[in-house]
């Protein structure tokens, strides 16, 4: 390279070529801007790229990991305000959190009401801290020796208004109690169910030394419809099926406390006896002994989506109208032992109740209560990423193969075109699926495979173009000057086929986006990265075809992005290959 040694000349030439390129670019942009379809396509692509780059600006939720945001299979919220003849559903409910000051965050008893059957010996008041609990409601029963008062009941409750005209998808209640009082050490023989092996039969009998409360306490959490004048014991749920979501331990409290005649606390856990048979609750579960304290945490969930008559359906019949409801806890001190002065204390730390709605967000929820809108948003990323990268790969391979086959000719041409033929003869999608199954279902594998299997058509086009370019005079001139084959291929021929490259890039992306979606739909994709195909796969796996808000958007997005790329590609084609402009 003689001319490269002339530094000043080179820089001059570069400046000149820069100005020339700039002019070309301005010229191109001017031509392109006149093409309204191309601009439309570019705008749509731009919107999708923005969504793909900054998904967090469009949704606060994670597409895969934010589960149980609402009820499962939730419908879009706006369907509620749509007229019925348009498919509106006035009975939809939203997530609802009616309890005020449920964990005593206000440091007082705002929002709470209570009734006492014996106001002389029981008291209800607010305490700032007990053990490690901050903010707690304290129900105390104490009396002197000699007299017993039988069942002494105190009820603490909140009343709220349920504004929706349909049943919620589910309700979720939580109660956290601490129990304390005067105790007597006794050695008892008890039959118990060990919670680590609840199926053990006959149930083992053991002697234990237990601290037994002098005044046994019954606790019932209840839920009451004021309009229907009906009350339902919520916890423990005896009549109704108790739904246990995975990962929520301590749910199996069914039927333990309500009929308890005694709560026993010792080092190995809490013993709750109901009539003759009792149950040990493992201390690692939600009953924790702390000195003589018993800490009880219970959660309960009722659902409406199953075919069975489940709790939420019983509480909220489908024809439910908006109404007042009451959630409360009833504490009964069973005072029968007159021998000594006794006290019994129940601390209520949390009594919460919230409702998961049958509707959620802009696009509803999936089968795990995840936000479909954010799945659509994050799916944009995968589609664009796979579509653009795999197309680039395919075009680069096709370009190199086409250049080599076209310019070098002979053996190279023959060999490359036969490879091309073989790959064209194999069935594309089945081969792709097999290879994805072989190499693993990661996004990167998919990109490489789509690139490696998609270059043949373009290579043929480039080859035919190169063959015609090869005979042009300027190539002859370059040869005469002594330019090498690589130099001619990449410096002289390549710029002349670049317009083809841009157009092919734009028009091949949709096919690869659809291919990615198809593989996702068939399940051959990374399950931890939500894509549009995977959304539809999960929809089909849960047979939610009826949920059109789940079915339609991914496909429409694929179509929109595909058409945007096609419009953009055609516009490029018209601008870069002006021969076509006359034709249309």
């Amino acid at each position, binding site marked *: 390279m003689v001319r490269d040694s002339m530094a000043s000349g080179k820089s001059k030439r570069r400046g000149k070529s820069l100005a020339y390129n700039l002019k070309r670019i301005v010229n191109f942009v001017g031509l392109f801007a006149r093409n309204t379809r191309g601009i439309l396509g570019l705008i749509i692509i731009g919107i999708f790229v923005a969504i793909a780059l900054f998904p967090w600006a469009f949704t606060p939720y994670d597409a895969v990991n934010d589960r149980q945001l609402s009820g499962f299979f939730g419908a879009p919220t706006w369907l509620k305000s749509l007229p019925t003849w348009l498919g509106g559903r006035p009975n939809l409910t939203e997530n609802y959190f009616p309890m005020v000051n449920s964990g005593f965050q206000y440091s007082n008893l705002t929002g709470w009401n209570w009734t006492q059957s014996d106001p002389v010996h029981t008291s209800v008041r607010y305490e700032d801290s007990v053990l490690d609990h901050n903010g707690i409601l304290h129900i105390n029963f104490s009396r002197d020796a000699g007299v017993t008062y039988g069942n002494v009941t105190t009820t603490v409750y909140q009343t709220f208004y349920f504004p929706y005209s349909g049943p919620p998808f589910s309700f979720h209640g939580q109660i956290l109690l601490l129990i304390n009082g005067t105790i007597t050490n006794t050695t008892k023989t008890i039959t118990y169910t060990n919670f680590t092996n609840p199926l053990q039969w006959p149930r083992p009998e053991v002697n234990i030394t237990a601290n037994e409360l002098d005044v046994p306490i019954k606790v019932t959490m209840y839920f009451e419809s004021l309009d229907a004048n009906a009350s339902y014991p919520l916890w423990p749920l005896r009549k109704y099926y108790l739904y246990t979501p995975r990962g929520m331990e301590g749910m199996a409290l069914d039927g333990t406390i309500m009929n308890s005649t005694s709560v026993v606390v010792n080092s190995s856990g809490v013993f709750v006896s109901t009539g003759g048979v009792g149950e040990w609750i493992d201390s690692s579960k939600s009953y924790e002994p702390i000195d003589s304290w018993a800490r009880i945490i219970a959660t309960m969930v009722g659902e409406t989506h199953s075919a069975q008559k489940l709790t939420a359906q019983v509480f909220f019949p489908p024809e439910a109208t908006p109404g007042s409801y009451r959630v409360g806890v009833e504490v009964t001190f069973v005072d029968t032992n007159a021998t000594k002065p006794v006290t019994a204390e129940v601390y209520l730390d949390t009594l919460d109740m919230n409702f998961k709605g049958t509707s959620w967000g802009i696009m509803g929820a999936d089968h795990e209560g995840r936000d479909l809108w954010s799945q659509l948003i994050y799916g944009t990323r995968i589609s664009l990423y796979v579509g653009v990268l795999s197309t680039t790969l395919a075009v680069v391979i096709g370009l190199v193969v086409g250049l080599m086959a076209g310019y070098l000719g002979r053996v190279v041409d023959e060999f490359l075109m036969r490879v091309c*033929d*073989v790959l064209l003869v194999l*069935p594309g999608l089945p081969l792709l699926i097999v290879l994805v199954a072989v190499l693993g279902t990661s996004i990167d594998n998919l990109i490489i495979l789509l690139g490696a299997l998609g270059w043949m058509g373009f290579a043929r086009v480039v080859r035919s173009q190169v063959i015609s370019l090869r005979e042009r005079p300027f190539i002859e001139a370059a040869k005469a000057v002594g330019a090498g084959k690589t130099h001619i291929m990449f410096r002289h021929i390549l710029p002349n086929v670049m317009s083809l490259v841009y157009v092919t890039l734009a028009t091949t992306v949709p096919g690869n986006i659809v291919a990615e*979606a198809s593989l996702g*739909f*068939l399940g051959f994709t990374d399950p931890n990265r939500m894509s549009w195909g995977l959304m539809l796969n999960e929809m*089909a796996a849960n047979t939610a*075809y009826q949920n059109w808000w789940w079915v339609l958007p991914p496909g429409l997005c*694929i179509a929109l992005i595909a058409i945007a790329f096609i419009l953009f590609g055609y516009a490029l084609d018209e601008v870069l290959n002006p021969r076509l402009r006359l034709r*249309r």
Partner: protein
Amino acid sequence: MLLVVLALNYAIFFLMPGDPVSLFVNPVRGSPEGKAILIERLKARWGFDKPPEQRFLIYVTNMLTWNFGDSIASGNPIASEMLTRLWYTIELMGGSAFFGILIGVALGVLVAWKRGGKFDNFMVTASLITYSLPVFWMGLVFILIFTLNLHWFPHANAFPYDWGLPGRRPIAYTVSAAASPQWNGNVVFLFNPGGAMELLTGYLLHLVMPLATLTLFTYGGYLLLTRATMIEALTEDYIATAKAKGVPERGVIFKHALKNASLPLITSAAIHLGFMLSGAIITEGVFSWPGLGRWIFTAIGNTDYSVLQAVFYIVALCVIMANIIADILYGIIDPRIKYGA
């Protein structure tokens, strides 16, 4: 060419991970010794214990003699299982190719004829949209509309499921010996119009939705291709000559333009038909269609190499054949092309 495909076909599945033998060995039950014996026998059953070069030889002879061996997952001979599925795939793919090409070419000619008008713009946009929509999504939307909301068509299988039960399949005709005390060798053919009608409607009703989905997916490409080639042909000089000569417009379009524009159409139709046998994996999956595509899909799940090898081989064969046929058709349509001259 065919041999290269054969070798590639073998290599892909030779490298495919996953052990089909493990499908048949219960990981929980049974003694290790018993399992070892079972595995050995299973390997001998399909010849996995032989060295690779010997397996390759067996594979090549199997393919070339059209005796594809036995399916690993089901144990049945592949050739017979392929035949039962072949019909459904041809029914679906052939039908959609037929309608898709017909509609696409007809509309393409029409659009090219009236190019630049509103109809042209509408059809080009519509076909671009249907062409770029994912086919499985179209199927899902069809199910949503026509099965779940309108209850017009069933959405799964190629015939009502209960036809698979004994005695449930409608009978179109019976062939029996004549019911006379002295049988004189006559055979009575009894046609049952009710049963035949039921059979026909049963099959057709199940065919409608997958066929419509695939046709909707197919026609767009042909429309665009026909339009492009037709417009190119219509701007040629000989069309102007024909028009000047006073040939009616219909004749110009069909005799002069379409005949010359049909070469690329034939290529793409040939490739389309060649790939017909690979079935539409996705459409067949959406509609639970018992064709070859679904077979491929389940075979991938079962690591059933022998089925996949056989299907890939047949598909490659069909594509090669289709290309040859297209070349021959070229020669018939375009007399300028002469082979072997």
